[in-house]
């Protein structure tokens, strides 16, 4: 059974335990929606970008628009919040790498697993890996979090 935030504790969590999985689908509409959160501040920079400027994105390395990498990071954090209490996550570290672009129409499944339990500086820490995999089976993002208890 996957770890649940409501019952998670350092004692109950075991190496190899899985986190609940979540699925997220990006569309051009969801990408545009996120853009509206930030566009007021950075309008000049947002004008030419890989997320909403179709012509520019088509000619770029990804040959099309892609989602915001920080949104992918937020999906990973949502997954972590299903497994760990939010107050613990607000003392955690998260190291995330983008591996492949997430495009409009992609559905990504985020999964996670406990790698290690350890003590450091008087704290109990649970290290987990989180992976995002698209509908083609490609790993699009990888992350590692250390959650204190």
């Amino acid at each position, binding site marked *: 059974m996957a770890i649940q935030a409501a019952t998670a504790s350092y004692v109950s969590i075991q190496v190899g335990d899985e986190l609940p999985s979540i699925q997220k689908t990006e569309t051009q509409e969801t990408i545009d929606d996120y853009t509206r959160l930030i566009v007021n501040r*950075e309008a000049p920079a947002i004008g030419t970008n890989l997320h909403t400027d179709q012509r520019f994105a088509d000619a770029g390395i990804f040959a099309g628009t892609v989602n915001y990498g920080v949104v992918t990071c937020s999906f990973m954090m949502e997954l972590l919040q299903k497994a760990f209490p939010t107050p613990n996550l607000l003392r955690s570290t*998260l190291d995330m790498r983008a591996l492949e672009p997430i495009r409009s129409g992609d559905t990504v499944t985020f999964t996670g697993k406990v790698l290690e339990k350890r003590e450091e500086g008087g704290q109990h820490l649970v290290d987990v890996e989180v992976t995002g995999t698209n509908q083609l089976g490609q790993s699009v993002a990888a992350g590692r979090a250390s959650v204190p208890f």
Partner: protein
Amino acid sequence: MVETQEEENVYNWDVMEIGHTATPLTVEVTKERIANYAKSVRDDNPIFFDEAAAKAAGFDGIVAPPTMLYVYSPMRRAEIMNGLGYVSPEQSKEARSTPFAGTEVMFQGVPVLAGDTITSQPAVDRKWESSSGNRFVSFRIIATNQRGEKVVEYLYNVIWEYAQGQKSRNG
């Protein structure tokens, strides 16, 4: 003024120095902004919308989603470059992107609640070239609340330039 009619001054690898920074930015984190962010990333956790749910989870009020940090303490690379008299690669006439490569977040144990005011400042933290010749830049952003408590510190890494032969014109 960041550009003349004849020639624009595009921020580049050679002029980039560790510590280049922008002026601090202060953002008020309101209930509405928290709700809009949570809706945008399609996270329906009630602690982001409902005061009673947030209090039941141990918070003093509606709490901001942890990764809302990218909105209330944004990286602002273009503002770093503009402040030094340059345009960013994305702003130039021959625009090219500097795609997201990854992020490292160090939360500080201080929740950001509706009504908090967050001040952040970004700076160029590191630049390096991979064995394949791709160039990367890391920006470090530190954010504090209205009480001067650090709420988050994070690195935002971008692919500054691809090695020759690895990119298309706008890549």
